[in-house]
């Protein structure tokens, strides 16, 4: 729905936080969105470990949780997690195909449908 605006708002939040820590109210005042909307974006950013909240007195101050090399490390961690999942699926599919093509090896029988 409003994903484009949402992404733009999240970028703006990060750019603001790159200048220094800010509260939800301060972020909302600097952005053309409501406080609840800012809170929702902050939740997405916190779930992505990009932003962290620090209690200061009675309010919470948000700041960047990752920058520079930290951000690169988070990126690589997620990249490899997704890549290795895909790798495991590919290797298991290759193994299944080889077993199907090699009667007598493994537990499965080659099915009639698999024969050329």
């Amino acid at each position, binding site marked *: 729905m409003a994903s484009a605006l949402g992404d733009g708002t999240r970028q703006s939040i990060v750019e603001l936080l790159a200048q220094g820590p800010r509260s939800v109210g301060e972020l909302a005042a600097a952005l053309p969105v409501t406080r609840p909307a800012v809170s929702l974006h902050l939740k997405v950013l916190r779930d992505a470990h990009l932003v962290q909240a620090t209690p200061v007195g009675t309010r919470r101050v948000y700041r960047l949780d990752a920058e520079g*090399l930290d951000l690169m490390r988070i990126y*690589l961690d997620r*990249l490899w997690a997704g890549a290795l999942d895909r790798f495991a699926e590919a*290797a298991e599919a290759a193994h299944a195909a080889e077993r199907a093509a090699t009667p007598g090896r493994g537990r499965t029988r080659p099915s009639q449908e698999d024969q050329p």
Partner: protein
Amino acid sequence: MTDPTVTAGAPTASDLTPVVRQVDVAAPVDTCFRVFVDGFASWWPPEHHLGERTITDFIIEPFVGGRCYDIDTEGGECQWGTVLAIEPPARLVLAWHIQGDWTVDLDPARQSEAEVVFTAVDADHTTVRMEHRRLERHGAGAGGVRQGISSDEGWTVLLDRFADVAEGRAPRPIPGHG
């Protein structure tokens, strides 16, 4: 993080510990190694490449010094890694040349390393462990990683990609580097 002496906004030390990921695979170690190296293009996340080009293939040349590169529809090649060690079917070490600003720098002083170790559990099961280490090397030379990530093409696109992942979508492509 809860250290009261740390004031909000104080710079924190970068976490440069290795990225370690492990996966158990229901396939023999030989198959795993072959799929990882020869079949790299069959599983590597297709959106992970530099630029807007459409990639037709990913190649790992299976010898020490071999290039890891992708090929686009125009036939252009982009090297992003180099084989540092290859010991079938047990071990593969790749140099990683992609910097934080999404440029490629082949300077060995600025490369991290991804080591992949394949361990047979039994005839049909393998544990694959990946360790991506020496991340601090990407910080060598002019602080380009931080500078690049702070740029529109680095930082905000990376952020978009994180947010995509966090919301359960596929990360969007990285524009502007072709």
